[in-house]
């Protein structure tokens, strides 16, 4: 249960989010179709700070968000809100799920697949725009939106890549990821070598001790 929160309040928030998500899914029929195989799955998201339990049931009709569910769940994830946000934004969600602070119970594969489907949500604004503005204006406006969205996505990706290159390669503010991983490997190898050397020295010290009269 959701702490001391009034169930009506929690239900109102979940209903609003569910409504928003399902409106978005209506504009992305391909994504909605991809949710159909999950019709028998329920995902439990237990947020410990703030205290909030959400049960997510996908299906061909969209997503259903519930505050209570007493049946079996496919995957249960527990953690604080920032951990969930990290998982939602992660480039590599599997690594985040394994290495992060989230506690996982059940099968992680359907959860990761669902996250990937929702992350790839590609809405088609043409239908609602055409019904609101008419065929010609709606189509033109939708095309403009598509071009702007595509340009925005490309520009963001390009900017991120260039900023990454500048920080790591040109300004050398932080080392690149591969270099850092290489460094960690070297440190680990050095640690092992030192341990081996220490035990060898210890062995020699014992042998020397035995040889002394």
């Amino acid at each position, binding site marked *: 249960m959701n702490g001391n929160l*009034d*169930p*009506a309040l929690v*239900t*109102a928030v979940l*209903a609003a989010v569910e409504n928003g998500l399902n409106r978005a899914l209506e504009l992305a029929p391909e994504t909605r179709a991809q949710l159909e195989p999950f019709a028998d799955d329920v995902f439990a998201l237990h947020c410990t700070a703030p205290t909030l339990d959400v049960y997510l049931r996908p299906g061909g009709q969209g997503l259903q968000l*519930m*505050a*209570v*569910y*007493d*049946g079996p769940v496919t995957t249960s994830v527990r953690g604080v809100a920032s951990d969930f946000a990290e998982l939602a934004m992660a480039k590599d969600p599997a690594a985040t799920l394994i290495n992060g602070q989230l506690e996982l119970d059940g099968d992680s594969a359907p959860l990761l697949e669902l996250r990937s489907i929702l992350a790839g949500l590609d809405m088609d604004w043409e239908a609602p725009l055409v019904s609101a503005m008419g065929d010609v204006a709606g189509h033109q406006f939708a095309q403009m939106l598509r071009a702007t969205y595509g340009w925005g996505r490309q520009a963001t990706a390009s900017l991120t890549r260039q900023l990454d290159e500048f920080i790591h390669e040109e300004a050398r503010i932080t080392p690149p990821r591969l270099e850092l991983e290489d460094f960690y490997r070297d440190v680990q190898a050095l640690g092992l070598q030192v341990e081996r050397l220490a035990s060898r020295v210890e062995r020699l010290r014992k042998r020397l001790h035995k040889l002394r009269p």
Partner: protein
Amino acid sequence: MKDKDRTHFGYREVDRDAKAGMVADVFHSVASRYDLMNDLMSAGIHRLWKRFTIELSGVRRGQAVLDIAGGTGDLAARFADIVGAEGRVVLADINESMLQVGRDKLLDHGRLGNLEFVQADAQSLPFPDDSFDCVTIAFGLRNVTDKDAALRSMLRVLKPGGRLLVLEFSKPESELLGKAYDAYSFRILPLMGRLVANDSDSYQYLAESIRMHPDQETLQEMMEEAGFTRCEYHNMTGGVVAVHKGVKA
């Protein structure tokens, strides 16, 4: 006349035999504008109360659900979606007008196949023992003359392990909220009833019947006495409404 032959109709004491007819008159009068008035009176929050009740019911595909005092079919429609074609939902109401409005509304929305409509008295449900996985009664129990008999009847028709959900107005948790709620119920509600449904008396009865309804703890005890186990309740909107849950062992 003996006390056991008398019961409450709002704040008035009436003959037990007369109450059902008087309640029927109230609902005959409000049936056509029931949904509109519900939305106006609760500012749409009744949809959230019902939604939480449905979540709490744990109803799944293929199950059988009985929605008593189902009125205009808000719960039954959602249950029909959940149980699917292989499930069964019975919308029962003692009041012919309410049942007709509910049936017309659901059929107009294309809901048929797994839905049945039955005019039935909650005190003596016309179904075999162990018939349903879940029984719900939303904003209906307070209008029943013999609530204990109704609870026993619901227990009888539930399958072992089946759940009863009673969604009903209850007692606000805070005194301040209680006072605001009283002012709203006795001043604004009848006025709304007069303006929208041209019937202030029915909404005066609504406010009075809510005050005469057992509070959260009392209703839980009544459910336990009727034979339900694992009884619990959840207050909503500060206790203005509570949903009670009990399980048939």
